[in-house]
């Protein structure tokens, strides 16, 4: 490495090696097209102003997420077409910690996994009624993530039972 010519060559060799590694990784996914999606800048700016947010669930024009504001997290339902949050009376309570949320394609039904009084529970919210009802898992287990069918008639729920994570399909009335 004492040869100046050799020292000049090294960065190019490393760059070439990096390129080959990159191609190798891309090759692992086989024939991958690379195209950037278009950010919805206006809506993203509004979401940013709402504070931190996580666990997005998109269905139709509805985006449900967990938003952090004023030191506490709550479930938020955003009408993507109108670009603003919609009222969800009775959905959030100050002593509950939401973990995951799902929404149907009409924005009528939301399912939430939340922690309340030391328990993790699954609840279904009907927006037009402002009604929140608990959903029991059979056999009992601890729910975590979930997702809802577009028509709101079925949930897929990640459930922990006896140290094993399973997927439950829950039919909704």
């Amino acid at each position, binding site marked *: 490495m004492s040869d100046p010519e050799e020292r000049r060559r090294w960065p190019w060799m490393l760059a070439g090696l990096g390129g080959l590694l990159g191609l190798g990784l891309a090759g692992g996914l086989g024939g991958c*097209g690379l195209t950037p999606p278009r950010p919805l800048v206006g809506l993203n700016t509004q979401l940013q102003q709402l504070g931190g947010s996580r666990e997005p669930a998109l269905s139709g024009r509805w985006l449900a997420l967990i938003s952090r504001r004023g030191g506490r997290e709550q479930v938020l339902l955003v009408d993507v077409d109108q670009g603003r949050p919609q009222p969800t009376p009775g959905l959030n309570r100050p002593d509950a910690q939401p973990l995951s949320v799902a929404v149907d394609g009409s924005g009528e039904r939301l399912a939430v996994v939340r922690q309340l009084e030391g328990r993790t529970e699954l609840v279904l919210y009907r927006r037009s009624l402002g009604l929140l009802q608990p959903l029991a898992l059979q056999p009992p287990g601890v729910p975590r993530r979930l997702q809802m069918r577009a028509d709101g008639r079925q949930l897929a729920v990640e459930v922990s039972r006896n140290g094993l994570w399973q997927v439950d399909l829950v039919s909704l009335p």
Partner: protein
Amino acid sequence: MGAPWSTTNRTDPALSGDGRLLASLIDTDGRSQVLLQDQASGQQRPLRHLRGQRNVQSPSLSWSGRYLAALVLQGDQRRVVVEDRLSGHLLQLPLPAGLQPERLSLSPDARRLAVQVRRDGQWQVQLFALEALLEPDLAGGLRVGDGGASVR
């Protein structure tokens, strides 16, 4: 659902919009792989690119299950990818610089993608339009402009 996976951790379920297909992650040697199944029969459905791919996270299906979006760990970076089961193509969706994706949700019509990213040490959800990249996947499996081709 399928007996071979009954003693394996299964996480991150995602239903297609019509409820016909179920994607989930199965844990193999500490690395997650995506499993796509017919919900009624439990029968496994083919994936050209993502089947056998290790370190997959956050799967999300479109209406008919034509599109499967997911995060794939490559090195120390998570990439957003979409497998089109009808065309057999895999699309990688690079996010703006500085955004590290953590979770995603594809709208059933495949027109939008919501991505949870980490920026400046804080979680944020960002939305992206996919209309220029993907054909919509509409209810009934109809493709825009023709009689409709469904994915089985």
